[in-house]
């Protein structure tokens, strides 16, 4: 770039530069390699703008759109993808998705709009030296957490709450574990059902359980994923919820001695429920229809998914990100990854539960895309509901009423 005059994407030749917005700065190296190969084979240049995690992608996107300079390709979550689609901003990439074995979470009227590149499932981690066994069920978690809290100088559990993504995902997952149907209805007529009949009872039950568990937890309001991991690392808590093997990655660096004391576990569930939905983030590519190199962006999304570097991309954070397909999961690349080999239990969990992995988007009737849920996640309403319960002192019933009201407010 020149020092004095900025480079304007317009001037690079019309439609020949693909403007690519990505928050995957972590994998910058692999991405650059893939881009290099793409540029060799295609008459396009790819110009990446990296953003940090969180809302900064939204922010950058809004700026670019407002200036009439929207990106062609965005790396984003399926929920956001659906939101853009609803706004009419996306170009269909059915050929990229449907020709492959990729899941197709944003399919509207038969056209696919989202090319998944990775899956990040939620998971629990507990101290196998303090917990006498893998608790799994609500009641066992409760007894174990209680025992740990009382007999060791450590909290047995972490209940996270507040306006954060992790609190929101966790609360959602807890509700799912008790078969609470938060929403129902087809994509164009989503109903909030969390306070209907049996759902209400089960939701109250769930919040009640959370409240119980919070006795054995530090105040986790506003905690990010990293905060919970630190609680584990600093031995302030004996069990946390997290995404995939994320805790292992951090703790291996800071407390290598602790790694083998950690075991993964599925989310706690009340006795007798079937495990129907398992939260997994899904991230991938969307192509906007108002950019200057829409065709190039489609080509790049396709090239990316099929690139032989694709696995390198996914495995740049092993145990945390997983390939989007079962085939990928079983691939040699995954098998040969050293980190994954060291933690077979994680892989086992993922494989066993692969079919129940679900995104927040797919919570309409029969997994139809649910825009209300996507928005609720955007504002972390369920995370906030836990704050109402644990920090604000609302009863479980009041909490359910509160969250139902908020969700309905979104709908309108």
């Amino acid at each position, binding site marked *: *770039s020149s020092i004095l*005059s900025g*480079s*304007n994407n317009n001037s690079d030749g019309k439609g020949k530069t693909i403007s690519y917005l990505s928050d995957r*700065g972590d994998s910058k190296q692999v991405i650059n390699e893939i881009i290099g190969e793409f540029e060799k084979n295609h008459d396009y240049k790819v110009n990446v703008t990296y953003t940090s995690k969180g809302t900064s992608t939204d922010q950058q996107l809004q700026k670019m759109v*407002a200036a009439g300079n929207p990106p062609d390709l965005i790396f984003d979550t399926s929920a956001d993808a659906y939101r853009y689609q609803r706004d009419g901003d996306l170009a269909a990439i059915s050929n990229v998705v449907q020709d492959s074995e990729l899941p197709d979470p944003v399919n509207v009227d038969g056209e696919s709009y989202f090319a998944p590149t990775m899956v990040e499932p939620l998971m629990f981690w507990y101290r196998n030296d303090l917990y006498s066994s893998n608790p799994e069920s609500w009641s066992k978690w409760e007894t174990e957490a209680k025992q740990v809290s009382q007999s060791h100088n450590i909290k047995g559990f972490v209940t996270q709450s507040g306006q954060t993504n992790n609190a929101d995902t966790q609360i959602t997952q807890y509700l799912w574990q008790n078969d609470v149907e938060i929403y129902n209805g087809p994509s164009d007529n989503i109903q909030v059902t969390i306070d209907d009949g049996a759902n209400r009872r089960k939701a109250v039950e769930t919040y009640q359980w959370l409240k119980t568990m919070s006795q054995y937890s530090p105040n986790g309001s506003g905690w990010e994923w990293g905060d919970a991991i630190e609680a584990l690392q*600093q031995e302030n808590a004996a069990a946390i919820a997290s995404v995939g093997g994320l805790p292992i*990655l951090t703790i291996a660096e*800071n407390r290598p001695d602790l790694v083998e004391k950690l075991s993964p576990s599925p989310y706690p569930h009340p006795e007798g429920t079937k495990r129907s939905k398992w939260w997994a983030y899904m991230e991938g590519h969307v192509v906007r229809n108002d950019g200057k190199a829409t065709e190039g962006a489609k080509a790049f999304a396709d090239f990316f998914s099929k690139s032989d570097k694709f696995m390198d991309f996914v495995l740049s954070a092993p145990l945390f990100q997983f390939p989007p397909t079962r085939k990928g999961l079983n691939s040699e690349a995954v098998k040969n990854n050293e980190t994954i080999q060291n933690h077979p239990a994680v892989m086992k969990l993922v494989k066993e539960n692969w079919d129940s992995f679900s995104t927040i988007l797919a919570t309409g009737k029969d997994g139809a895309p649910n825009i209300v849920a996507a928005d609720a996640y955007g504002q972390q309403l369920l995370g906030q509901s836990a704050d109402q319960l644990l920090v604000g002192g609302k009863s479980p019933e009041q909490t359910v009423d509160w969250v139902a009201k908020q969700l309905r407010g979104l709908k309108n």
Partner: protein
Amino acid sequence: MATSSKGAGSFVSQKRQQQIKRVGVYTTAILVSIFVTIPVYIMLLLAFQPPEVVFSGGQVNLIPQILSFQNFNELLTTTKTVRYMTNSIIVTGSSMVLSTSIAVTAGYGLTRFDFRGKSLTARAVLFSYMFSPIVLAIPLYVLFYTAGLLNSYFALTLSLTAISTPFAIWLMWQYFQTIPISLEESAWVRGASRWRTVRDVVLPVARPGYISAAIFSFAVAWNDFTMARVVMSSDNMYTITVGASLFLDRVSVGWSETMAVSFLMCIPPFLIALFLQNYLLQGFSVGGLE
């Protein structure tokens, strides 16, 4: 005619007041040292030790065990930290110089020249600080995009200068009013032009004033995240705040690398503080304090 009891009306004796003052002065000094030093100490502690040493045993070990550059090595090999730092230094330096110069010039003008609506203009300038900068990102981006100025040092320098200048001008305006005009007059009658007078007489005397302005503009520019995010969209042009925020939320980045990059981000501020400090001490101040 008057009472002879000096210091009446105060309940505490002179000596006592003096003692209180000394105790106060030293307590404050010590508290401040502790207050400032502790975070800095912790930063160094983490930055210069491998994480497993700091965190071993489930506690943050507050006594350093070994000296290691592992965290820096990690930073320098896997990230563009050097490039980001360079960018930051370039824009911060230029913005600081530009803003301070404008502030000195405008501040002097406001002090020594009379024109209509002078204080009104000056006040109006402060009003620009009242609009929440959060929502300005989008309008600014649109403007820069339209002007074709994205991704340039020039545009970022200009924007940062625009942020720091209004207050810097205020500072200088206020400061110049403390300089006796007779000093300038005595230069004028010797034939020194206005500019020459400013250079030879006003600026040396106004040193503490423009150093404040420089410190302020430095802080604005070095601290900036929003503007850099608006103007720069290419990896090579990111400043350290933006660049660091890109890799700091990586899953594998822990406190140690964070503190290492923090340490790097603290070096220029430290040098600036040290340099301006010495510069401030050189010579004198109007009252001949030092």
